[in-house]
């Protein structure tokens, strides 16, 4: 057994060297156990009876300790390693809750079995490892050690050094980690950040991005105040700061001044943070100037677009895929007489509740990608009126070539159509007029010829006879009487001829007695001439009609019967007239060869067609003409003329020459 004065005691310098070596070992190695083992080994023979168990913390709970025998003395025999006893009263527990000093106490206090060591001491050093967990170095020294207490002292020192090295290392590591985190989160973060002292507004830290953004160096930053940056007056800035301190993190929209004076619009998120016991304001700044500009541009652009669509001089509307309105032009609302309620988001089908199915199909097809259009179509408007429209429907596309909806363009063409119709009518009227004038001229020619050839001749002959009378009176009185007779006869014939011509021009019976007798006479005359049995019937026709109407009806019947006689190959014909409360109905029928009704629909404007004349006369009086016929089945003309004042004026209004 070595004695207290043994030179095998380490000198203090040797101890220091040893400590340094050990420190170096501790600092370089990662494996604390290994380092411990190596360090302890250096103590050599002095610790031959000691044992070192390293209780390494392995897990989150306070019972997660894994013991390793680092030094088993020179013995080498396997050592049963006791686990850490549990229990709040145990000294272990004290250590666990934060004790950091090296404890030296009788083994019993730690509940370790006596068999482990004889009357020794146990040293326990808590160590915070690099991982930040509390592990324990447990050294049990035996009495058989040389200079028991001194060695204990040495070991204690050693352990302290080891412990504090380990501690430092872990603190350093934590610090390093913290430093790294700090750099990542703050220093080197690409977002503009700084820390503000809330009481003064002074900037206490700013990251690299902030320096770049604002144009201040780091040191400069630490000299300025947030009021130097925020364009709001300092009082407002202060009140904002107070607000944040009170309420927690807030998002602000400010204007910030850069070092060069440029003002930028920024979004600022500021929150209070506790750093090293002090409340600071942690601000993240986001430059939204460009974003704001872009938004503004977009807004203006959209406004322009909306305005353009609204005031475009055409009726257009834009819909989404559910056929809800997105945009319309003013004209759309006007043309379709939609009420002024906002259309945004309303479905097309709500504004046009009676859309026919054909339209729905077209709309669906457009949503599927096809375009459609029509030059003219009659459409019912929501207010019940009908209009002619020209329309075109097209899908519109979003950026990715997906269909976003449809655009409908329409144009009201009712006016245009009416004008076209009116023009057509005008042309038709002109043609009719021309043909009528032709007819008139022909009649005049005929009359002129009859007068000249017929009457002219006879009167000339009569005059000649009168001259003969003149001569004969002197010489041959009997002859004179003869001449007188022949003159009388000539004159009578002339009178009859005049009557005929006059009758043709205007049947006196019509003026004198009215329509019914005139028609009866007409039928009689035609019957005699043609051999066709033509009957006439008038019902409730006791009162006379306006003379314009009478002559029209007379001419119509005259024309109709004349046609029948000329073309129909009939044996029977008839005129039936019925007076109703406010119309006159005339039915003219025959049992002749009839004609194909389809031919009637073709253009009747060629002159010479008797039906045309009839149709015109009927129309002049706002009447209605119905023709029933089939080949071999004869023909029936049904004419309906309203009885009211307008019939008198219609022809005059139309400015057409009303020839009788």
């Amino acid at each position, binding site marked *: 057994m070595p004695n207290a004065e043994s030179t095998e005691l380490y000198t203090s310098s040797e101890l220091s060297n040893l400590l340094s070596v050990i420190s170096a070992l501790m600092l370089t190695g990662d494996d604390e156990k290994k380092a411990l083992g190596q360090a302890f080994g250096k103590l050599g023979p002095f610790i031959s009876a000691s044992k070192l168990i390293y209780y390494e913390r392995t897990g989150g709970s306070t019972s997660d300790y894994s013991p390793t025998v680092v030094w088993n003395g020179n013995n080498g025999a396997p050592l049963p390693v006791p686990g850490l006893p549990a229990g709040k009263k145990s000294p272990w527990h004290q250590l666990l809750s934060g004790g950091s000093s090296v404890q030296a106490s009788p083994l019993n206090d730690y509940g370790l079995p006596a068999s482990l060591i004889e009357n020794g001491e146990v040293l326990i050093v808590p160590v915070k490892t690099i991982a930040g967990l509390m592990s324990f170095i447990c050294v049990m020294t035996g009495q058989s050690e040389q200079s028991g207490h001194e060695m204990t002292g040495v070991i204690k020192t050693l352990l302290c050094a080891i412990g504090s090295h380990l501690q430092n290392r872990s603190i350093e590591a934590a610090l390093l980690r913290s430093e790294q985190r700090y750099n990542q989160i703050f220093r080197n973060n690409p977002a503009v950040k700084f820390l503000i002292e809330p009481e003064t507004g002074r900037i206490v830290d700013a990251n690299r991005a902030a320096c770049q953004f604002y144009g201040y160096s780091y040191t400069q930053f630490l000299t300025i105040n947030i009021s130097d940056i925020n364009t709001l007056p300092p009082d407002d800035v202060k009140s904002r700061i107070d607000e944040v301190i009170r309420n927690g993190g807030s998002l602000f929209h400010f204007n910030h001044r850069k070092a060069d004076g440029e003002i930028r619009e920024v979004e600022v998120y500021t929150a209070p943070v506790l750093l090293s016991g002090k409340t600071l304001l942690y601000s993240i700044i986001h430059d939204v100037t460009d974003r704001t500009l872009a938004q503004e541009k977009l807004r203006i652009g959209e406004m322009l677009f909306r305005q353009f669509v609204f005031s475009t001089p055409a009726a257009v509307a834009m819909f989404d895929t559910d056929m809800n309105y997105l945009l319309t032009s003013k004209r759309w609302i006007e043309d379709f007489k939609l009420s002024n309620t906002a259309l945004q988001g309303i479905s097309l089908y709500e504004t046009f509740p009676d859309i026919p199915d054909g339209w729905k199909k077209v709309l669906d097809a457009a949503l599927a990608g096809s375009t459609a259009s029509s030059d003219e179509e009659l459409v019912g408007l929501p207010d019940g009126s009908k209009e002619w429209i020209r329309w075109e429907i097209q899908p519109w596309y979003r950026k990715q070539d997906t269909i976003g909806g449809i655009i409908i363009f329409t144009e009201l063409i009712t006016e245009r159509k009416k004008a076209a119709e009116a023009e057509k009518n005008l042309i038709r009227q002109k043609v009719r007029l021309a043909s009528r004038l032709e007819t008139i001229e022909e009649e005049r020619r005929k009359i002129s010829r009859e007068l000249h050839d017929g009457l002219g001749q006879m009167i000339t002959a009569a005059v000649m006879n009168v001259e003969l009378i003149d001569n004969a009176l002197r010489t041959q009185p009997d002859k004179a009487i003869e001449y007188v007779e022949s003159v009388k006869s000539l004159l009578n014939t002339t009178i009859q001829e005049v009557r005929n011509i006059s009758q043709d021009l205007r049947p006196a*019976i019509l003026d004198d*007695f009215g329509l019914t007798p005139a028609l009866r006479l007409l039928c009689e005359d035609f019957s005699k001439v043609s051999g066709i*049995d033509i009957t006439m019937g008038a019902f409730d026709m006791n009162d006379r009609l306006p003379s314009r109407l009478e002559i029209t009806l007379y001419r119509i019947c005259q024309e109709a019967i004349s046609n029948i006689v000329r073309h129909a190959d009939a044996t029977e014909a008839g005129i039936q007239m019925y007076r109703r409360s406010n119309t006159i109905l005339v039915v003219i029928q025959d049992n002749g060869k009839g004609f194909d009704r389809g031919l009637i629909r073709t253009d009747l404007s060629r002159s010479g067609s008797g039906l045309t004349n009839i149709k015109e006369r009927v129309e002049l009086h706002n009447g209605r003409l119905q023709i029933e016929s089939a080949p071999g089945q004869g023909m*029936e003309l049904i004419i309906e003329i309203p009885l009211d004042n307008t019939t008198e004026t219609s022809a005059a209004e139309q400015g057409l020459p009303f020839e009788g």
Partner: protein
Amino acid sequence: MINVLLADDHNIVRYGISSILNTSPDINIVAEASDGKEAVALFEQHRPDVCIIDISMPVMNGLEATRQILLTAPQARIIIMTMHLNEEYLNQVLSAGAMGYLLKNTNKADLINSIRRVYNGEKVFSTSVSELMTQSYIRQSKKQDSGTRSTSRIQLTRRENEILKLIAEGQTSQSIAAKLFISPRTVDTHRANLMQKLHVKNSAALVRYAVENGYT
């Protein structure tokens, strides 16, 4: 002395007629009118025995004047003079109550004679007018013999007969139209005509008429 009122709108005609009549000692022209209204007024004033009235006159025609004169003086003797020669005129003149129908080409003797005869209460007609009346009568009786129509029964046209038959069978306008190859509107028109002709108010009555008259 026969007092005569002369009414004609042409001076020259009146002149001619009065010249002729003046050659007769027993005829005296008491008044001349140039329109129907004047004629009625002058008749009131002069109460002539015989009137010679032209049909075609302005303001009021001769026929109307005749009717009006006869209203106040049913015994008035009126001869109508006209250029027109046809049955219709004749019917109208006679229905109005005139006693004579002379054409204007009547010769002097006939004219004077006619006045005297009418004064005595006879009806007078120009020869050609009489011929016309005879022809007409013959034609009428021919028609009656052939039995194509009876004057007592209301005459329906062929089409009207067809449609009445189908109505009596209870067919609708649509089916009648389809059957006869005409439009339903035409069918309805004929239906209304039938009701008017037969003086009935509804289709049920039409059916009844049809049944009663053997259309079913």
